[in-house]
């Protein structure tokens, strides 16, 4: 198994999720990972379209929700990016957001890879 950058995926979070379902009988971790991997891309699309139409409120809301799910799965760096986007949305200042969105897209691919490795 390759050695990941700890800031991409916080292993203590993953371990605590595993502890919730130690025998793995409920498949909780893989279910959460599936939910995260299937829900995040459409939400990021929502974020981009809100950004394109200059809808700061929606940008803030979607980023807030994405920040939560990243936190739940231990995707620390991605969570931080969404937190910054959320703050810009709240401040109705979207100038910096496009570059943050680009970075979050790249970061998501890394998170995806790392999570898939965890549940494989």
């Amino acid at each position: 198994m390759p050695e990941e950058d700890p800031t991409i995926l916080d292993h203590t979070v993953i371990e605590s999720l595993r502890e919730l379902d130690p025998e793995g009988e409920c498949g909780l971790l893989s279910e959460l990972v599936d939910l995260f991997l299937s829900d995040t891309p459409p939400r990021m699309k929502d974020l981009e379209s809100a950004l394109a139409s200059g809808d700061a409120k929606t940008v803030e809301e979607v980023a807030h929700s994405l920040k939560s799910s990243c936190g739940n799965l231990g995707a620390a760096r991605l969570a931080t990016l969404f937190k910054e986007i959320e703050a810009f949305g709240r401040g109705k200042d979207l100038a910096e957001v496009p570059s943050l969105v680009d970075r979050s897209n790249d970061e998501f691919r890394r998170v995806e890879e790392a999570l898939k490795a965890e549940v494989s």
Partner: protein
Amino acid sequence: MVRKEFDELRDSGQLPSPSGVGLKILSLTQREDWAIDEIVGVIQTDPALTGRIIRLANSAGSGATASITTVNDAALRVGIRSVANLALGFTLVAGNRAGRCESFDYDEFWADSLARAVCAQALSTQLRRSVPTEAFTCALLSHIGELALASVHPSEYAAILELSKTDPSLDMRVLETERFAIHSLEVSMAMIADWGLPDCFVDAIGYHQAADGEAHTKDTQAQELMSLLRMASTFSEFCTSDHGQQVARWPEMEFVRNELGMEATEFRAFCETVGESWGDWGRMLQIETAVFPALEHVEKLSKRVRKRTKTTSEPDDLDAADKFRPLRIIAVDDESTSLKLLQSHLSRAGHDVVAANNGKEALALTLEWNPHIVISDWMMPEMDGIQLCKALRRAQRAGRSVYFLLVTGRDEEDRVVEAFESGIDDYVSKPFNPKILLARVRAGLRLVNLREQVEREQKIQAEATSKLGVLTRKLRETASTDPLTGLPNRRYGMERLVEEWETWRRKQEHFSVVMVDIDHFKKVNDMHGHDVGDVVLVEVAKALRASVRAIDIVARIGGEEFLVVCPDTDDQGAIGCGERIRSAVETLEIQSKGYTGSVTISVGTAGITDDVSDVDMLIKRADEAVYRAKASGRNRVCSYEETSEVRRSA
């Protein structure tokens, strides 16, 4: 049986009864020699009734035969008895839509009865058990005893209805029996029998709620009807419940499904057809029926609410407030991984959890399902956690007292003051630390337990208050009733006389009293003993009560002396009343312990005229008239106004 108690109810003259056409049919079918044409003729005088019977006869058929267009066709197809019973049922519905019992919901009663009837009919057709029209009538009238008790004892029945509302665990049948020495199903049975409806109706109605109902009768028709009634009850209870209860009742509906041997979708379609038919009949009879729920939704919700141990022991002291029990919790988050985690933490701790994806869904679910705790995310599109909490606190029902736990992000914690102001009970931050989350839920459990304990104590208090009210009323009744004859006693009779006097003073209408004294009563006592004397008094009292109008007041005011207060009655009216009583008593054949004999009475009447200054003077005049009746040979009626003897027997 409870024949005596039922007779008392019937003697009150307040029992629900069919009117018009129904009554005519009743009197026809109670004769030996009735003919089909007569019944058809009577029904046809009522076009609305005719339409309903034709419609039902058509819907009860298998559909393969030609449609029914006349009452005659209906009689040929389903039998004239069946048509007559149906007509009776419909006129009962039409004639008993309102009443004096304030806590009795007459509309709901008929909506419920109609649901039962429609379902019993559909089940009868489906299972080929019994006759569909018979099943309809039997189910329609199965709970008529409740209406009867509400009609005869409006205030007492209201009291026990209120009592059972404050504590749903109380059994209505037990409460009814405690209060009336007869319960509503027994009243239903007696009324059905009284109307001459088939015996199998009586048995089916009487025992369908008993666990071993079928063992009570050998009649297969009764057994078939019984099983239909049982399923129809489940169905009607489901129909008339609110959505939250419907979810809880779904497993009972599954029993019905098993009995029908249907697949889930087939059963849903069956129920929906019955629900539609319920609505159709409701519109036709102008009975408001509830909107039939989307069954797929109910079924799904029922499955989501995972059934755990049925009931946990109820906490009964303060120490028990911390005791664990599974709580109903609604978890709300628009973000799926957080929701999944929240659900997982709570389920692992043993709670029943239903998930909602947004504030609006959570609001609807809370009002439906009555959860103990709502745990909601703060930031959500459309309706956020704070708005949800505010909406719940404004709601009249479940929402107001639900324990509300708000989920906040780390960076929202400085805004929680705002959240508390909107009515949240506590907050927990995410990402969740399961230990902290569950500690907050335990704090909620403690509050829920304490709150329920307070509610229980209030209930016990309300019950005690209500019992006290009943006791006071019973005492008052005892104090104003003559224990031997059951008639009002002197005190009550005089009180009512004074009240009537006051009314008379305002309205200046005619008003008379009739005084009754049994002739040679002392001789009866001396020759045959007091036991026989008592029987004489009881029989005379009964004859008295049976000969006067409902508005007249009869009281036993002395040893063998009775007083009848007759409002709105002039001198001639009073004499007529006296004469009816006199002749009723004269024809009595009194039998007791080897004694067979009859008695006569002397009657005196007096009416209000301008020279009567008070109640005592009126009584005195009536007494004088009685004295004159005695003096001129007894067994006669004398009026104070007419000095001459008015009437004596041949």
